[in-house]
């Protein structure tokens, strides 16, 4: 849409990723006037790199998952000089889900209660039972494929049948059975049969770099067409510079910058932030007109407790033909054997594992990157490459615990294409996470060996795109930024619906939880609209 109405909206949503898409759809469907401002653009699935012979190289340049490498107009600089991680994200309609692997996991019941069960961190003000109906609703809406009955979870089922686990999945499942370790066919937000506007998955195997045929429930496809049909307006190329607040301390809209660099203003009765665990604190910290320390920050916790879910991974090569070029990727199988605390392991909490086929030959060869020149090149490249179709990768979602010293702040030395400050990350993995990484790597080697791998290669840690914890939820305004409904304690008509609100990160991929929480918050906003204080 080009022209915005000048009258005041019911709800302004910032960010068109999963959180913003679900909130926009939910509120527009209930008759509210909704505008979503998104700094990036639409991506045409046909433009995705996957169908091109050079796709692996494109994903290291203009299609990189790292914004600092991509340096697109919509990306803002991330200063990671003082961070043990270089987070990945995508800034555009659908947000990170354009690139996501679509592993569709619910948090485990214990993930909400880490203080109660493990005596560390804090409990969430909500629990598994509060979110379960919203998980179900989102699953049905986007068409999640999976097999119900996993004994690790409270009973729930999926709307679409699971994908085949393939020869690699079978081989590994047999290995896991030998070890007596949990595994389950992958739950993926990838349609195993045609669903609404999405075609059946054709198993290109490149889900994590964008599905080139639009057969993945990225939220530009799975939610936005329905949100706009319900009346939500989505403005792309619209970068929010700050949320504005009236004299009563209520949010009354935003100042945003269009692609021509013009400053614009939009007014709304309520504001919903969905910029992700880095983008949202950035916006709050930039909203310093009346709040020098940032908006909604009386607790001082905006931008604190950043969690990034480092990813450990181990590649195994096999003599058997595994047809590892078959997707989805996506997870073929997952394991929750080590997802919960067992203090005898020497750390608290755990990691969910996902078994994935490699994305391509270069992805396999990345596993030689840490080797010496002599052990990496010549026959070593050829030998490892020859296993591309016969290799599988286990990767783990490391539950890094919240620490106030892990932060997002503004980096005024670097600016985005609109002249706004970049984000500076201070992030250090703690000893608990490091021990967990070592443990998971060793167990993954064991799993590969039990499945018959002839060689294993442990990769350096990488990033997950799980951006969490920087505007945490809680009942006490002194120790949290938003309440149990995602409402800012300090600003009663400001809501947050992305991973920022997560109190702990859990040991699984977060997007199912982000979407379910967004649905829950947006439903609450709609149901309590009559009592909502709005700007005069």
């Amino acid at each position, binding site marked *: 849409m080009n022209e915005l109405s000048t009258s005041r909206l019911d709800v302004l949503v910032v960010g068109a990723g999963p959180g913003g898409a679900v909130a926009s759809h939910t509120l527009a469907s209930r008759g509210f006037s909704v505008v979503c401002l998104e700094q990036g653009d639409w991506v045409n699935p046909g433009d995705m790199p996957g*169908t*091109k*012979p*050079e796709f*692996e*190289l*494109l994903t*290291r*340049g*203009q299609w990189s998952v790292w914004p600092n490498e991509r340096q697109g107009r919509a990306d803002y600089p991330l200063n990671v000089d003082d961070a043990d991680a270089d987070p990945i994200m995508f800034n555009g309609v659908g947000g990170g889900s354009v690139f996501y692997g679509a592993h569709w996991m619910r948090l*485990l*019941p*214990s993930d*909400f*209660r880490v203080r*109660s*069960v493990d005596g560390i961190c804090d*409990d969430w003000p909500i*629990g*598994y*039972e509060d979110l379960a109906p919203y998980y179900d609703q989102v699953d049905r809406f986007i068409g999640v494929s999976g*097999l119900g009955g996993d*004994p*690790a979870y*409270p009973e729930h089922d999926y709307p679409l*049948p*699971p*994908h*085949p*686990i393939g020869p690699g999945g*079978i081989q590994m*499942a047999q290995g896991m*059975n030998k070890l*007596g*370790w*949990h595994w389950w066919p992958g739950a993926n937000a990838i349609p*195993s049969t045609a669903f609404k506007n999405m075609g059946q998955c*054709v*198993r*290109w195997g490149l889900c994590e770099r964008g599905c080139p*045929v639009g057969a993945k429930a990225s939220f530009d496809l799975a939610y936005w067409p329905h949100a706009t049909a319900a009346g939500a307006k989505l403005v792309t190329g619209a970068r929010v510079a700050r949320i504005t607040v009236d004299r009563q301390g209520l949010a009354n809209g935003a100042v945003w910058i269009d692609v021509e660099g013009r400053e614009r203003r939009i007014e709304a009765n309520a504001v919903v932030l969905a910029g992700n665990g880095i983008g949202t604190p950035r916006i709050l910290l930039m909203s310093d007109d009346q709040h020098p320390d940032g908006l909604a920050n009386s607790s001082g916790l905006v931008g604190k407790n950043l969690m990034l879910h480092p990813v450990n991974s181990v590649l195994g090569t096999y003599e058997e*033909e595994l047809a590892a*070029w078959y997707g989805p990727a996506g997870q073929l199988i997952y394991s*929750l054997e080590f*997802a*919960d605390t067992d203090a005898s392991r020497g750390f608290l909490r755990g990691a969910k594992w996902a078994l994935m086929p490699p994305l391509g*030959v*270069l992805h396999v*060869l990345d596993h030689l990157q840490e080797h010496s*020149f*002599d052990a990496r*090149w*010549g*026959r070593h490249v*050829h*030998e490892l*490459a*020859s296993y*591309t*179709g016969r290799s599988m990768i286990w990767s783990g979602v490391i539950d890094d615990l919240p620490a106030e010293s892990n932060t997002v702040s503004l980096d005024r030395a670097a600016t985005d294409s609109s002249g706004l400050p970049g984000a500076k990350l201070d992030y250090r993995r703690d000893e608990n996470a490091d021990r967990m990484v070592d443990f998971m790597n060793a167990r993954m080697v064991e799993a590969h060996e039990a499945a018959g791998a002839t060689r294993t290669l442990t990769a350096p840690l990488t990033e997950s795109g799980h951006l969490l914890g920087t505007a945490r939820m809680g009942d006490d305004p002194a120790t949290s930024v938003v309440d149990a409904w995602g409402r800012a304690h300090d600003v009663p008509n400001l809501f947050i619906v992305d991973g920022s609100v997560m109190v702990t990160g859990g040991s699984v991929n977060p997007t199912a939880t982000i979407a379910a929480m967004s649905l829950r918050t947006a439903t609450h906003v709609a149901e309590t609209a009559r009592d909502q204080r709005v700007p005069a």
Partner: protein
Amino acid sequence: MTRPSTLTREQVARIRAAAAVLLPGHAESPAADVLPDYDELVQVAAAAVGEGRALPAAIEALPDEPTWESLSTLADADPASFEQVSLVAVGAYFMSPAVLASLGLPTGERRPADREQVVDELSTGILDAVYERGCPVRTLDDVNGATR
């Protein structure tokens, strides 16, 4: 396909010479420098990673007549340049349909799953052991018990 880059013939030749050392061929796989379409693939690979200023400078850093030793020295002394050039060299090589075929890898096809495949896979009893072992984590009841 990405529009080929505008590397000069000499620049491409320097990459090819390095590739001959890094990718000398093995078993069924041909050496990089004997692939008939290698030079064109290098142009596409260079464009795909983004030519910028860094790539020409990295190509310049290559030894004139690369050997195992001289490339190893470059990789130690100037890892950024080495990584840049080797990515293009290796990326171009593994774009070659002949090379991919030698590895048994298909290129670009849609392969929707037959609906029966997953049923066949899971109806073998492979999940029985998982059901028998039960829940590997604390259940909702365990958690609620600990919370009260």
